């Protein structure tokens, strides 16, 4: 339960609506008093305040600096202007940065899930001795401030020639994300239906076969949710990519956009456009992954 609860927690923005509706057949019900409308209005106002920055960035990314100077930041553009976006897009070579981010985050997500499965198999299914401490040891990777590892890692990667190479970042985040994955999957596997495993053993499956032919497919819903979260978390990382990926050609989206802030060639609407380019991938994840997440959660995470 612990594990599914955590997953539900992290994934809930998208996952829970069905439940809300189910528990209250017919959706809206009850008398609506004035105070209810006022409170709803308050909730909507909070939403508007939270969305307002996105709106401002959106409308100003399509404005010319001249129009910004005359009509200000609050009104939508009278005609669309794409130069700011185009200028920034070309300046940072945006497709290259997107590819770097996708490659790094994708590789981390896959490797971290595989590593989590191996660790969790030993801890949750194998129930190795002192497993609570083993889990805690792994969690260390997630708990520590990255600064406490930063300089030694920087030095080590320089020594082995991985400095300024995307693989340095991939290795580091594989370990950091797998720490969380190990913690979560261990408790999921700890409650894995014993009958299924016994049946596999009777059929003569070895441990290795049981893991990949039985446990792995059955827990796939949980794993796909982990995969998506690892992807997004790695996409959002900043300090380590900033430190280890110094040349333009290797940078990730957040790093490339950040290092150009305050540059004297960045006029007001180009800066807005740069923020928009940083926001768009996130919005896309939100839209694309919505269904997978819901499926992952409703499939019941193994149980």
């Amino acid at each position: 339960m612990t594990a599914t609860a955590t997953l539900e927690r992290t994934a809930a923005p998208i996952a829970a609506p069905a439940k809300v509706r189910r528990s209250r057949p017919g959706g809206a019900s009850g008398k609506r008093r004035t105070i209810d409308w006022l409170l709803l209005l308050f909730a909507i106002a909070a939403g508007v305040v939270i969305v307002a920055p996105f709106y401002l960035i959106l409308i100003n990314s399509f404005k010319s600096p001249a129009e910004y100077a005359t009509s200000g930041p609050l009104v939508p553009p009278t005609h669309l202007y794409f130069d700011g976006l185009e200028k920034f897009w070309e300046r940072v070579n945006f497709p290259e940065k997107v590819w770097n981010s996708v490659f790094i985050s994708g590789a981390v997500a896959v490797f971290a899930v595989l590593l989590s499965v191996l660790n969790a198999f030993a801890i949750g299914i194998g129930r190795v001795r002192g497993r609570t401490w083993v889990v805690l040891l792994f969690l260390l990777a997630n708990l520590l401030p990255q600064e406490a590892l930063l300089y030694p890692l920087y030095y080590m990667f320089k020594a082995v020639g991985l400095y300024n190479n995307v693989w340095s970042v991939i290795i580091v985040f594989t370990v950091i994300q797998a720490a969380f994955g190990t913690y979560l999957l261990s408790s999921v596997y700890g409650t894995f239906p014993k009958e299924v495993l016994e049946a596999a053993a009777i059929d003569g499956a070895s441990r290795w076969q049981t893991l990949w032919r039985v446990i792995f497919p059955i827990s796939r819903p949980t794993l796909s949710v982990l995969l998506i979260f690892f992807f997004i978390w790695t996409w959002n990382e900043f300090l380590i990519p900033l430190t280890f990926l110094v040349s333009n050609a290797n940078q990730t989206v957040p790093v490339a956009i950040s290092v150009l802030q305050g540059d004297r060639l960045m006029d007001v609407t180009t800066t807005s456009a740069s923020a928009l380019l940083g926001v768009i991938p996130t919005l896309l994840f939100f839209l694309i992954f919505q269904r997978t997440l819901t499926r992952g959660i409703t499939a019941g995470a193994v149980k």
Partner: protein
Amino acid sequence: MTTVPFVRRQRRPARAARTADEPLIPHRGRRGARGYWLYLLPGFVLLALIVIVPLAWNVYLTFTMWRGIRPPRWIGLKNWQHLLTDEKFWTSFQNSVWMIVAMVIIPTVIGLILAALLFDLVGRKFGGRTASFLRATYYLPQLLPAAIAGIVIGWILRPEDGALNTMLENIGLGFLAHDWLGNPQTALPSIMAVMVWVQIGYPIVVFMAALQRVDPELYEAAELDGANWWQRFRAITVTSIRPEIFVVALTCTIAALKVFGPVYVLTRGGPGTSTIVPAYYAYSEFFQAQQVGYGATIATALTIVIAAVAILFVVAQNHAERKEREGQR
């Protein structure tokens, strides 16, 4: 963003250990349970290389003077002594306390109210669809990289013709308009605003998921007994989701102590030291001042504080749970 959920972890392993220490797969042959350690091998090797060795090395560096080129020179406790009297270091932790206000206290309080509002009122009287739409809206900034969130808010806070200043002028408060990030008085509150914006969705989502657990009849019964919204909120909502409040407080406090991106993007710790945070201070000692030993000392101090916070929270949570069980008896 924030992810070290200590979700009442202790309980189950303890109970499981008593009922069964046997592997879930019945084992044949001689290898027994020991063979499972092989599966941990890659994990342990990587953990050692990427976490354990660098961590130990970093602690060693705190006793040295190192500029990154010639071998480190042992100087004993000098870095630690300097740390204790370093005003910039203490300012950085003071600012961390403000980050905790912005990332833990404000989001938890507002999050509780909004989650309860969505669950108890909007969901019930205006339909689950409205409630989940609003929740998704609140959650949106949580998905942003913190550095990008900093850029978005920083753009709005631009000096002179920035969006916030224009808005203030439009409603006749033009005298309040100024250079928000360039003024030591308002730079820290500006960064706090970024963090509140980013963080607000997390507690709402967690709390709303937790509220699914609560029996709706409880609210209806309380309503029939004449309890008003505030009374229901305190007696039912807050009480039943206390474990989640603990988890949110712990994970967000740790995240608050680690803040780096928005400070790097918006102010680089300035003006002066008004927005310096430990993570950024350590970074600038490593790569700008080239005082690796001292940077390592700051990072180690931060690690100790984070570990202490985590332990304190877990102890407090266990204590609260024990008290609750005794109360029920």
